[in-house]
């Protein structure tokens, strides 16, 4: 095939793919694969205030004690893991009663706390709001909480 024809086909594919991917994004969500760079569309600094969401994971043990655990450590993730994975796994797409989810938490806790008998995992979704001017904390509250019974 001559280069001229290849070029036309290449650009024709691009011309078809572009409206298709924008249409999919409009009706569903950002597709993959798709020609997109980061949207950064969750603007958090508005009217002089700034807010952020964080996760606090607490493990309660059969002996009555408890321990805080880092989400990155719990997920066995690394720096390359997209940050939005944490929101999905520990909040938006979490089904605390799904047996597969429960089994996974049980397995991870057995690795992380081999000598303790974990009973419950509590994931608190925390919303903190700060003043932009001096970054002072205005409010901090639990938006919701998930409880996974592993013991």
């Amino acid at each position, binding site marked *: 095939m001559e280069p001229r024809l*290849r070029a036309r086909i290449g*650009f024709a594919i*691009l011309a078809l793919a572009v409206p298709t991917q924008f249409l999919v994004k409009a009706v569903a969500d950002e*597709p993959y694969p*798709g020609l997109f760079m980061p949207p950064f569309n969750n603007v958090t600094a*508005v009217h002089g205030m*700034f807010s952020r969401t964080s996760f606090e994971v607490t493990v309660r043990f059969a002996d009555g004690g408890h321990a805080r655990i880092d989400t990155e450590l719990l997920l066995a993730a690394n720096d390359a893991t*997209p940050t939005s994975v944490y929101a999905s796994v520990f909040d938006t797409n979490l089904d605390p009663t799904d047996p597969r989810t429960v089994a996974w938490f049980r397995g991870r806790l057995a690795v992380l706390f081999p000598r303790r008998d974990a009973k419950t995992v509590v994931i608190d979704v925390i919303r903190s709001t700060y003043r932009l001017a001096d970054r002072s904390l205005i409010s901090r509250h639990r938006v919701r909480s998930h409880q996974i019974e592993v013991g």
Partner: protein
Amino acid sequence: MARLLAAFDDWVARGPFTARDLAVFRIIFASAVLLMLPRVTLVAGRPDSFLAPPPGPFELMHTVPSEGMLLVLEILLMLAAASLCVGLFTTFSSLALSGLIMVNLGIEYSFGGLEHTIFLVLVPLTLAFSGWGRQWSLDSLRTGVTDDDEPQWPLRLLAAGMGVAFVGAAIPKMQAGWLDPTTHAVQGFVLRLGIHGHAIPMESVLDATPGWTWEILDVATVALELVVVLTVIHWPSFRVALAVLCTFHLGVLVFLDISFWQNAVAYGAFVSWTALPDLVRGLRRWLMAGRWRPSIGSLAAIGLIAVGTYACRLGIVSHGFDGGVTVLAGLVGILYLGSLIARRAIVWSPRM
């Protein structure tokens, strides 16, 4: 219609890229993939209930692949990258590598987090047809074909794809209120993503930065992302856009602690690598001849280089190996822009 097609054919065929430039980039790109692509086996062991794939082919994946399957995918990817690096069966290796990167990253992105690394897929997909394996390759030894008359259209297609991707970033920003003066999007992201673990006292930076600066950064980010696609029509302008983007990515690394090393590597497709030795020799001759005289342009260039070097140092301190690549690209971008300022003119060459 025929005239329009002829003009299009003429436009896509224009370009300064040689087979040797592309061969150097082929080796750089494949090496970067070999060294820096994250391992997909990281997701092994996650339960199927965690799956939340984005719209597209990965919605068909209802179970998390086994560790063995993930390992096979990783090994195939490494083989394709190694084969591309040495230029063996280059067209096939390029297409295979594109598909394998897409699959490996697609699996990783099927847990509710989508990163924007599509240029890693797009580069080998388009450049498979560029003849980037015709020089400095096993293919050239095997087939004896080493001609330097390379089709330029794959580069133009790659550039167009990049431009579209940035438009895809700008539109949601505008919809989310980046241009609204009551929001300071960049400031919010600096606070949320970049304030911890930095080599620079970020609090001091935030305190010293007036509010209108944040709004300018919001508007400038959106403007840059919209402009890239327009520059695709003219190679010198596109290279300026890439230099600005490299500087932009350096800023993102320093202030948000996010390394877009994938983009930094992909932009290397548009560098005339084989001109570098001539550039260095010319610079040395110019300096030895003692022709330099202080001027606003040259002093501005020196200032840019100084600021850029300091930013690079901070970026390397706070980030790792992939941060180093982003920093290097940022430094090259600053040097390129600095040289343009020093010359005080961008030469407009319509035939490029």
